[in-house]
């Protein structure tokens, strides 16, 4: 084959491949979604200077308050737990379509909270407001955007097992009748409403838009009888003081007590608003050059503000975020956000949020889903304790302190009976070879491979396979979101395992001379058997680097006697037939460590074996 023929074949292949690819109809929505977020940012940044004028206009009309009062009730940080009760932070996130309970320490999804009717009819917009219920219940309030620009508030109670046990649905900031007569307001469309829990957890609040005129706004407080979930509405008529900007306020936080509330809101375009009783106060929180994205109250009553500042490029990509404690005082303190949170500069700070519960503070960053966790009894003590990757697509989240009683308090989700053939999720691919023995591969020696009741991690674990274990395939398989799963028989137990950790073994070869050749004719040496094993694996097939996603996994703990021995799996070869090697490495102890004696390699096959060769 000459160069010209090769080039022609490459061109033809790429054109044929490309021709098979058809964009999905949803692509424009994804583009539009991203564009909308960037546009929001431009509005925020572009109106910062204008906001100062707005604030100056209304400050003379408002009523200036003293510093925020310390909440007298804080059910978010309940009394010390009874013996046997663990109080832990939990985070509820949304990607706009579903709600997830997430472990803030690991980012692991504990539960997808059950869907409710609103999900089918609309999407979650704005914040997620979370508070603890009684015991280890969880109560979540969200705003649902419905077709026709109507909004509703959903308040859901989830039991300890996170089953939906109660639900309240009330007309939101704009009801269906409201919007029909009102013109589209693109600002409100881009900055959806938010809700806030009162500090004692009995009420929620949001900004309601008047039925007749979207420019006329009143703050409505919805009170919630906790025992019976029976709502009563307590509209709080508010004199807007002639400032039309109130149309674009977002509820951010509720401080004070239910009887003497303070509502903290931010105005789109900058400027913050406090309402106490029926009086407004406007302020800019001293955030010169920055925009307050969200606020929260620490348990001590100190205000925490998440502030975005435009960078050199005046765009979302170059913006930076700051967390500022007590911004209205002379002693305001900036809590540094660790460097490197946005290494590729793709964050959209306008989507940031801050939540506080007990001594925990959580800061989220846009749909990158990074969670920055801080903890401290006082604001002075607040320290960053780590960053956690939230599920991809996370747009907003709420945090609460919940009881976790006994062990486990959150039961394993999923069915407890063997699923029938009809109930099995996913598609059958026919890739599992019935009766064939599959080795467990690529699982570290201090780990195990779960075998579950059905094909997927949501099913209960029925047994475990050791890293060098094996099992017989029944021939059933299913392709689900988490991969291709095989049904296996393990010591009389039938269950499912992810086939990414399974392979059939082909021939075994002595690779000693090849390894020595690859090491410039020298027998490899190392100070430990573990190091020697990885060094030999590197000679067989290099790991690391973007160009070779090969992994080296030590699957038996190194042993040392007359000879040292260790087994290393080399998996992930870019080949659809050969998965990799299982290397059994022997070495002679020396004064300095170990010198390779011999290495045997067994070929691991992805699809099957015939005559000792991978299919």
């Amino acid at each position: 084959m000459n160069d010209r023929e090769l080039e022609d074949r490459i061109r033809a292949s790429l054109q044929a491949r490309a021709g098979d690819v058809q964009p999905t109809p949803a692509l424009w929505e994804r583009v539009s979604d991203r564009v909308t977020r960037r546009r929001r940012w431009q509005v925020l940044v572009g109106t910062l200077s204008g906001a100062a004028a707005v604030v100056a206009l209304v400050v003379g009309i408002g009523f200036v308050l003293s510093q925020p009062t310390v909440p007298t009730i804080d059910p978010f940080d309940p009394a010390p737990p009874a013996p046997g009760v663990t109080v832990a932070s939990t985070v509820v996130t949304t990607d706009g379509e579903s709600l997830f309970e997430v472990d803030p320490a690991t980012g692991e999804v504990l539960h997808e909270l059950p869907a409710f009717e609103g999900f089918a009819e609309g999407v979650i917009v704005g914040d997620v407001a979370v508070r603890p219920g009684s015991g280890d219940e969880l109560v979540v309030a969200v705003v649902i955007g419905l077709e026709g620009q109507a909004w509703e508030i959903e308040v859901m109670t989830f039991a300890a097992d996170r089953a939906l046990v109660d639900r309240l649905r009330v007309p939101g900031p704009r009801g269906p009748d409201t919007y029909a007569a009102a013109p589209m307001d693109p600002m409100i469309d881009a900055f959806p409403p938010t809700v806030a829990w009162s500090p004692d957890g009995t009420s929620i609040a949001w900004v309601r838009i008047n039925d007749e005129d979207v420019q006329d706004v009143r703050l409505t407080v919805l009170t919630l009888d906790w025992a019976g979930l029976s709502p009563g509405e307590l509209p709080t008529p508010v004199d807007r003081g002639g400032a039309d900007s109130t149309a674009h306020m977002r509820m951010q936080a509720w401080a004070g007590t239910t009887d003497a509330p303070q509502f903290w809101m931010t105005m789109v375009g900058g400027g913050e608003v406090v309402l106490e009783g029926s009086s407004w106060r406007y302020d800019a929180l001293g955030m010169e050059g920055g925009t307050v994205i969200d606020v929260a109250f620490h348990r001590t009553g100190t205000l925490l503000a998440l502030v975005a500042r435009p960078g050199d490029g005046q765009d979302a990509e170059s913006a930076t975020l700051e967390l500022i404690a007590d911004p209205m005082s002379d002693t305001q303190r900036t809590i540094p956000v660790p460097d490197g949170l946005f290494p590729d500069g793709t964050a959209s700070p306008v989507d940031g949020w801050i939540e506080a519960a007990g001594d925990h503070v959580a800061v989220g960053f846009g749909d990158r889903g990074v969670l920055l966790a801080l903890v401290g009894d006082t604001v002075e003590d607040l320290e960053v304790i780590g960053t956690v990757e939230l599920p991809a697509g996370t747009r907003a989240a709420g945090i609460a302190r919940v009881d976790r009683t006994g062990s486990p308090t959150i039961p394993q989700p999923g069915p407890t009976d063997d699923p029938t053939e009809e109930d099995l999720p996913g598609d059958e691919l026919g890739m599992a070879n019935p009766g064939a023995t599959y080795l467990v591969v690529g699982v570290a020696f201090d780990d195990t491979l779960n075998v579950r009741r059905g094909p997927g991690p949501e099913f209960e674990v029925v047994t475990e396979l050791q890293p060098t274990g094996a099992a017989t395939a029944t021939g059933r398989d299913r392709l689900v979101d988490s991969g291709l799963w095989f049904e296996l028989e393990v010591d009389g137990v039938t269950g499912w395992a992810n086939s990414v950790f399974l392979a059939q073994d082909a021939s075994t070869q002595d690779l000693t001379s090849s390894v020595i050749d690859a090491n410039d004719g020298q027998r490899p040496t190392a100070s430990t058997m573990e190091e020697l094993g990885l060094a030999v694996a590197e000679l067989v097939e290099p790991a690391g680097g973007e160009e070779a996603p090969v992994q080296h996994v030590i699957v038996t703990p190194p042993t040392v006697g007359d000879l040292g021995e260790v087994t290393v799996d080399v998996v992930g070869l870019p080949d659809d037939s050969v998965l990799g090697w299982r290397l059994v490495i022997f070495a002679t102890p020396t004064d300095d460590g170990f010198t390779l004696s011999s290495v045997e390699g067994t070929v691991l096959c992805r699809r099957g074996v015939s005559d000792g060769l991978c299919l």
Partner: protein
Amino acid sequence: MTMGAQVLAFARSREEEDSFAEVFNEHHRRAVRLAYLLTSDHHQAEDVVAEAMAKVWVQWQRGRVDDVGAYLRRAVANQANSRLRRRYLERREASRRTGDDRGVRMVDDQTVEHDVVWQAIQQLPDRQRQVVVLRYYEDLSEADTAEVLGVSAGTVKSSMSRGMARLHDLLSDEGAAHQGGEA
């Protein structure tokens, strides 16, 4: 600027979005195909294009984009590159966890491949594959490829040379030597 003026400004940007939809319609299909050739994953390809399109929009609505197709191509290549890097890091991280809930590697495993040329292209290291795709799918010169990838012309030249040599080896015997050698 009053808030009313802000609303008007925002409404204007809505009109721009309608106009941007035309730009999208003209360019998105080719962009998705390029992204697919660079990532081998349809879902990832759309994600890459969505992000790239949004970056284009930022510059486009400021009137800073003369050639949308070229700008978009560059944004797609950059995005695809960072996705590949991230995917690799995710794989490494996944290997350290207990996990029957993984599935990243399966995306590759599931690629049922009948086209031996495409199969060989997928075996190329990322950089070699990028230059091959840009050269033979986008018909870019070495200089243009270097600009799109943000690397020197020398890097493009050497990557292309190694990539073509590898493809020649793989396709001369249709991969038989490759598999037979290991088994």
